[in-house]
């Protein structure tokens, strides 16, 4: 029964959160920085959790996330640009070869499917590799995907290295929260299922996991494809949020950022990834903005403050976390209402 009350409290909290967002949207001008932060935070939370599913829960050190986001973003753009806009967007490719437009939600789901298919194919060779070799191979594949999408021979489909734009997008922050929230909930449910237990077994000890009857290849593939599916979905959401996309956005630096979000939140903690995504976005897009502005106090120019300083401070913070707080914010624990109230501590071994 205790479990049921906990679920009730969580449902109430979520309802409350959505209600607050709903009211905010009606009271604060939509150009407010708050909404930028919330939307981007929700998108990054999803991709960070999807990366955590691989790196934190299955022990597969993959650095391909940006590549799968790219596939998702492009799939979304290609499938939703209204037919009458296509001659404009695909101006160098006679309007492109796709001459239909799908409903955005369907396109987002297909964006995930496309990323999942890419992941399946890439996984066939690379999932046999171990730790750092897997990292470098997935990073390499992400680069190949990027080159492939920019290839002018594929221009009629991808618009080559030109922008994709004019596709429809939802403006409400609620949409991003609900969509990303459902996806994260699905990942959590997967982690808590018997498959999730198998993933954790593989993370802890591959040889022992195999001896327990877990098929390594099969389960690694599932984790890789599912993670990429959600990376694709988040890519589609990112495309929607940004209203235009270009392959050159999805560089390995993007994967590094997501990885660092996961590390800050705690490798192996879903709530950690979510919290740290919002923190990351709030700090980088909002709070630390002042560091980028040349500031005068009276006639005294505050030293160091100018464009780019924010990112330097930011990277130093990250290095401090990586070096001295290796557990990140949450370690492998999860944030929960009951833990907060101190009723029942479900913390699982902080040290690793």
């Amino acid at each position, binding site marked *: 029964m205790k479990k049921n009350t906990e679920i009730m409290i969580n449902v109430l909290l979520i309802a409350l959160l959505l209600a607050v967002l709903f009211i905010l949207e009606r009271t604060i001008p939509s150009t407010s920085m708050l909404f930028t932060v919330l939307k981007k935070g929700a998108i990054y939370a999803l991709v960070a959790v999807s990366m955590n599913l691989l790196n934190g829960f299955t022990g597969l050190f993959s650095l391909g996330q940006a590549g799968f986001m790219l596939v998702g973003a492009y799939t979304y753009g290609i499938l939703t640009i209204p037919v009458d806009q296509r001659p404009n967007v695909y101006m160098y490719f006679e309007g492109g070869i796709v001459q239909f437009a799908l409903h955005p939600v369907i396109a987002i789901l297909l964006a995930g499917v496309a990323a999942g298919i890419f992941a399946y194919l890439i996984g066939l060779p690379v999932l046999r590799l171990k730790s750092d070799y897997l990292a470098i191979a997935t990073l*390499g594949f992400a*680069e190949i995907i990027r080159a492939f999408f920019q290839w002018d021979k594929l221009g009629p489909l991808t618009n080559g290295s030109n922008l994709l734009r004019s596709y429809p997008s939802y403006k409400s922050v609620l949409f991003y929260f609900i969509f990303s929230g459902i996806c994260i909930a699905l990942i959590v449910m997967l982690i808590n299922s018997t498959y999730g237990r198998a993933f954790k077994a593989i993370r802890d000890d591959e040889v022992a996991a195999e001896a327990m009857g877990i098929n390594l290849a099969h389960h690694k593939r599932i984790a890789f494809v599912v993670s990429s599916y959600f990376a694709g979905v988040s890519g589609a959401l990112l495309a929607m949020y940004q209203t235009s996309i270009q392959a050159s956005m999805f560089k390995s630096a993007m994967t590094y950022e997501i990885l*660092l979000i996961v590390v800050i939140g705690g490798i192996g903690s879903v709530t950690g990834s979510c919290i740290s995504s919002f923190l990351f976005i709030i700090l980088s897009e909002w709070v630390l903005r002042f560091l980028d502005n040349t500031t005068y106090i009276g006639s005294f120019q505050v030293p160091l403050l100018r464009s780019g*300083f924010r990112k330097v401070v930011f990277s130093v913070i990250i290095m401090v976390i990586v070096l001295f707080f290796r557990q990140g914010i949450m370690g492998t624990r999860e944030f929960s209402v009951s833990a907060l109230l101190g009723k029942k501590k479900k913390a699982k071994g902080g040290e690793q």
Partner: protein
Amino acid sequence: MSWLSRNLPYLMAGISVGGQYALIAIGYTMVYGILRLINFAHGDIFMVAGLIMVYASTVMPIYLSIPLVLILTVVIGFTVERVAYKPLRSAPRMSVMISAIGVSYLLQNLALYITGGLAQQYPAIPWISDTITVFGVTTKRVTVITPPLVILLVVLLVLLIQKTKIGMAMRAASKDFETSQLMGIRINSVISMTFVIGSFLAAVGSLLFFSNYTGVTPTVGAMPGLKAFVAAVFGGIGSIPGAVIGAFIIGISENIIKGLGWTTFSDAFTFALLIVVLIFKPTGLFGEAAADKV
């Protein structure tokens, strides 16, 4: 003959850039050999060496700024290891790799801050940057002097590793990290030495590389860095001759691909090569196989 004269520029550029990759690749392969760490920040050290040259040359003559670049780069490489990798010696390998990615992120953002995001013009180094004509192809002298210089440095390095005491310690450490410690090898100085050599060669590589491709941007190190890493894997990670040969092969191949008009795929080719090598011959051309103990 017309085919040759048409493709000779690409071939020469390939050999030259291959040599520059080789100098970076040695840093990767030596560090990996001992620490089993992909030093993601190595490419950025190379970039920083380029930036130091840009700023140094504005305040002092070239003949002073070149040694300064070499010294400062070595100091930075040494410091990075001491600050970001040494504290994690007993941590899981993944943590060290994440730290390396963090350093790379930091160096790139620092460079972004200092340069203001604008590409910096690399100074012309007298003699090296002069234009010459070889076999009817107009090029910079650096293209021609890179291969012999690389070979000279590699020979010196191999001699260092084979003949000196510190070289012997390095070989021991890369064979078996723990045991070599038990045998009284001061592992920290061996590792520092590895980073010093790696950074020095990266600095030399940057002098040659930027004499040809003169724009220094904060992310300019990432691609050559990754390619040099691929070269190291291709040659068999841990093997210095392997890294050098791998680097030449990659440099030449990517320039031939550019010559064929497939520029978009010249970077992708490198990674495709990496993946093929990892799948079919994970130990590379000259690597030694190691079986996992169960």
